[in-house]
């Protein structure tokens, strides 16, 4: 997949996460073109932010489950990452229930996530590049969320999840020979 194609997929993936995750944003026809940053800027309360984050985590579970089935990430990383993304989703769903919200429906078809089916059908490198884009977008989402979350406990959870996504990026970058830690400040922006 070309760099432009990956960036397009990233925007589309992010847009889908917004549509799946945030009720207020789902109505927007412009959602597929929004960046994660836009999404969290528009989510004006903790529940909306958590709901959007659940959407992204559920997509990540689906993506890594597809990777594990196709052995697209070595040494069991696909299964491990899918399990960790599910742990994030579970914690966020519990938090959303505490806030009186309802978790968004889980995506079940890889075709619901732009770029995933192609990446899953490609080489290990193709999948790693797709996953790097996805994880980078997720890191950006959490980075934005840390400025907006009001509940300190939710903030702590977001910080610890974002650090885990950054660790996934290390493994993915190393898998394709990239610098595992290229930036002193990990924001998901301009990477």
């Amino acid at each position, binding site marked *: 997949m070309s760099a432009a194609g990956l960036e397009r997929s990233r925007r589309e993936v992010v847009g889908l996460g917004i549509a799946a995750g945030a009720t207020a944003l789902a109505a927007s026809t412009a959602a597929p073109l929004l960046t994660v940053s836009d999404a969290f800027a528009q989510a004006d309360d903790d529940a909306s932010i958590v709901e959007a984050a659940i959407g992204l985590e559920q997509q990540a579970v689906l993506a890594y489950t597809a990777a594990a089935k196709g052995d697209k990430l070595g040494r069991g*990383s696909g299964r*491990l*990452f899918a*399990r*960790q*993304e599910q*742990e*994030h989703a579970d*914690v966020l769903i*519990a*938090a959303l229930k*505490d806030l009186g919200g309802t978790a968004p429906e889980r995506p079940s078809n890889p075709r619901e996530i732009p770029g995933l089916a192609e990446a899953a059908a490609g080489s290990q490198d193709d999948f790693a590049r797709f996953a790097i884009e996805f994880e980078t977008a997720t*890191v950006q989402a*959490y*980075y934005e969320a*840390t*400025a*907006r979350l009001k509940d*300190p*406990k*939710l*903030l*702590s*959870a977001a*910080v*610890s*999840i*974002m*650090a*885990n*996504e*950054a*660790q*996934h*990026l*290390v*493994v993915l970058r*190393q898998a394709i020979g990239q*610098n*595992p*830690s290229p*930036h*002193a*400040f*990990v*924001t998901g922006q301009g990477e």
Partner: protein
Amino acid sequence: MANDLDPWLPGGHGHPGGHKRRDFLRLAGVTTVASAATIFAACGSDDGESAKTTTSEAAREGDATVLNAVLDLEYLAIAAYTAGAPLLKGDMLRLSREFLGQERQHAAALERAITRLGGTANKAKSETEYRRGFPRLRTQDDVLRFALDLEQTAIAAYAGAIPKLSARELRQSATAINANEAEHVSVLLGALGKPQVPAAFVTGTRS
């Protein structure tokens, strides 16, 4: 150091390895981040305009105190990567030089932020003072294990500090640094032949 994690977050209570961590914190000269929480707690009332102004000033002072605590740990990491470099080879030498550069960037950013808040940034101790408190480093693995401990300690400190910062841009900057330290941990774990992403929630707990 307390971490104040959400009760529904797995493994959110307590930190194994606390003894070693306390040693590092002493070595770094860290005044605990928890003390900053006390400052915030003491200025929680904001009835009336003058009280709001007072809260804002106290919040800035509190933010500077929190940032100084993590700055001390950045200085410690800089000293450790500097001391360990002669024992490293190949990829790990190259990566540790990058990590050292990144820790320096963190320290510089924290110093600037503290100054902007009207505070005084702590100064680093001399290299000799730091080295006096370091464990004996004889091999590459010694250096990697020591660096891993320091990075985990820093993550625990940032995790405790971030919710206590009142300014949202400071919370974001600290989060961006915390994620970079988490990356360092994954690289170091891999170099030591350990699982690189051992936990879904990265809190600085020993893996």
